[in-house]
């Protein structure tokens, strides 16, 4: 008998007042009993609407059916046929706008907690499964993957499973891309990413860190001198955007990328870290996406007295995942909605040019906004309310307003075309670029998007590369 409860089993989590001061994972995960109970809410629909909402087409009702039977490892095997990173996706996917948005149970009540179940299965596997992954027999073809973020890892995993000899090149000193430098520990523990990378290595994937493609080695060298027959570019979004308002070079103004990289990758949240970061005081994060939520909640955990999210539209248009916004509010982050920064204010002591405080952020002037007519994307355009300017007292400002593509690969690869925004041009169904044998996916193509969309693109490209090299 299905469980006809209208609501999901709640996710056990650390109390907001406790977690706001530590970097441990916020959500602690379902128990075996809760997972089975939640799985029983699935009606196992014949037409599987949920699968159509998944960018990597996980066989959702099938894996949930295995949970019902208590066959957790088998459930994992079903997921891993479609997804290379189940423990990651179960944590960071926007399920509410993907699989769960199509769930029949969601029509009247809450959908099945598919994401929570995926996470449970992946964690169960990581904890209980002792076997090693069998390295597939090589088919003799060499493929290079640029970037070890979600699209690159997915593409590498899928190709390795098909027998390709895959080398992943990573510019930083650690593999994982945005999963290690961007998404904080309290949302995605780094040991989970390390485990997923380790699984890929067992499949025979080589990971070369400290190599910047476009600088250390070019794509042409990979293909003409090093014997790679195809290349996948998953180099990520690249350069952080700023607002181009006065004061953005003051001390205490960060891009979200820099702030999060210092904390996540460089472990600045540890007291013994050798990498400095501004801690404490009053912090404003400008922007409303997941990155903004991550930056705000990181600032809070680093010891800020007060953290604001400053966003120029209203709660309705906020692009971040609902769960992240709820978590942020619970933790005490204040949302300054319909506000737009116009100027960042700095300290200046005219009597003492050597005053160490000179050039430090002391506040931000904002203007209030109202929503006008919808723009071409259907989002209501924010309009300034003249004369409504006010000042927020601050010590740190973090700009989380998106990124523009990195020019390094484009500028050193002849024949690789990009669009007007700098994104690499690809065929949608294959990830094929304008250069023979070169495929691309993820943020390098789309600009800042989600982990799962990048994984979907990595998967598509892996299939297309397989077809290209099988000819």
């Amino acid at each position, binding site marked *: 008998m299905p469980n006809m409860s209208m609501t999901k089993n709640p996710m056990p989590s650390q109390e907001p007042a406790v977690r706001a001061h530590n970097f441990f994972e916020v959500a602690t995960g379902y128990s075996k009993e809760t997972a089975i109970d939640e799985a029983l809410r699935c009606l196992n629909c014949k037409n599987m609407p949920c699968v159509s909402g998944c960018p990597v087409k996980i066989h959702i009702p099938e894996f949930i059916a295995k949970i019902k039977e208590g066959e957790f490892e088998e459930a994992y095997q079903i997921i891993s046929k479609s997804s290379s990173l189940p423990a990651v996706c179960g944590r960071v996917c926007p399920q509410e706008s993907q699989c769960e948005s199509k769930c029949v149970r969601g029509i009247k009540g809450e959908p099945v907690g598919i994401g929570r179940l995926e996470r449970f299965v992946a964690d169960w596997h990581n904890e209980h499964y002792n076997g090693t992954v069998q390295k597939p027999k090589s088919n003799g073809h060499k493929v290079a993957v640029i970037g070890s973020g979600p699209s690159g890892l997915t593409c590498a995993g899928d190709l390795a499973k098909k027998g390709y000899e895959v080398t992943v090149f990573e*510019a*930083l*000193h650690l593999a994982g891309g945005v999963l290690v*430098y961007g998404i904080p520990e309290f949302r995605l523990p780094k040991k989970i990413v390390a485990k997923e990378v380790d699984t890929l290595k067992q499949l025979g994937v080589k990971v070369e*860190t*400290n*190599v*910047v493609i476009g*600088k*250390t*080695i070019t794509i042409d060298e990979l293909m003409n001198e090093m014997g790679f027959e195809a290349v996948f570019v998953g180099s*990520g979004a*690249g*350069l*952080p955007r*700023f607002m*181009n308002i006065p004061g*953005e*070079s003051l*001390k205490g103004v*960060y*891009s979200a*990328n*820099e702030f999060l*990289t*210092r904390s996540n*990758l*460089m*472990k600045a949240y540890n007291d013994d*870290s*050798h*990498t*400095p970061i501004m801690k404490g005081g009053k912090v404003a994060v400008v922007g409303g996406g997941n990155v903004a939520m991550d930056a705000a909640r990181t600032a809070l955990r680093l010891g800020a007295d007060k953290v604001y999210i400053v966003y120029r539209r209203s709660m309705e248009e906020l692009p971040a995942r609902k769960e992240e916004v709820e978590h942020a509010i619970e933790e005490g982050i204040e949302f300054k909605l319909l506000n737009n920064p116009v100027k960042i204010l700095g300290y200046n002591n005219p009597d003492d040019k050597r005053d*160490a405080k*000179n*050039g430090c952020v002391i506040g931000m002037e904002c203007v209030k906004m109202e929503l006008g007519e919808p723009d071409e994307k259907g989002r209501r355009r924010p309009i300034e309310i003249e004369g409504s300017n006010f000042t927020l007292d601050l010590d740190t400002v973090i700009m989380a307003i998106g990124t523009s593509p*990195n*020019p*390094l690969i484009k500028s050193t690869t002849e024949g690789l075309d990009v669009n007007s925004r700098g994104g690499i041009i690809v065929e949608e169904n294959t990830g094929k670029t304008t250069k023979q044998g070169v495929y691309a996916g993820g943020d390098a193509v789309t600009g800042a998007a989600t982990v799962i969309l990048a994984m979907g693109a990595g998967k598509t490209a892996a299939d297309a590369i397989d077809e290209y090299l099988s000819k």
Partner: protein
Amino acid sequence: MFEIVNKKELNPTVTMMDIKAPLVAKKAQAGQFIILRVDEDGERIPLTVAGYDREEGTVKIIFQIVGGTTERLNHKQKGDFIQDFVGPLGKETDVEGLKKVCIVGGGVGCAIALPVAQRLHKMGCEVHSIIGFRNKDLLILEDEFKEASDKLTIMTDDGSYGEKGLVTEPLKEALENGEKYDEVITIGPLIMMKFVVATTKPFDQKTTVSMNPIMIDGTGMCGGCRLTVGGETKFACVDGPDFDGFLVDFDEAMTRSVMYKDFERKEHEDACNLFKGVE
């Protein structure tokens, strides 16, 4: 891991190392930089390439011991390994078509200026070098500069070697005497570069400066190295490190460069004490 194949103390605060890094050595050009981490959990620091040997697969770095990381690096010996070494990053110094250049280097910046001087010298460009140090004990690379320059002027703040005074003095004198260069290329402390630009500007003498701000990834991802150049925000790691000196906002760059001064001082002290304890 990357092996230190050679280590030499150039003066009590400046050390030279050759690091085995064949991929970097194959591509490195004067003006580019690398990023290194001394050990696991270390911070990432940028250092400009001071030379390379493509056949041996080594890259030369010269660094001043200024903080915790450079202190830890200096404690490594020949045969030891450093954790990470990535590059070459940034754009190479644009030397195309230059026939006559004045190189102005200050302190450890001379280490970075040298490969530029050598490259220019090799392509037949007339090189006038002015290099400055606080005193005789801190002088580095004199012979190398002699070899790469058609004219070399050495300045010390206290007059203990060469001529007494700042690097801007002989530069100004040359310009006043009607000397015209295709370019003045200056590398050194921010305050020195600021005054070199102040010296050349009245003569409308084109001047290139090499910026070395705080960085993390070195590939454009973090934006920590941003500078204001001609009113626009530029990233030193991908747009530079060389910029038109007339356009750089030096006062802002100087403010940003000391953002973590207190943290750095503590790190340096910790690193020193730590090793004292070991001995």
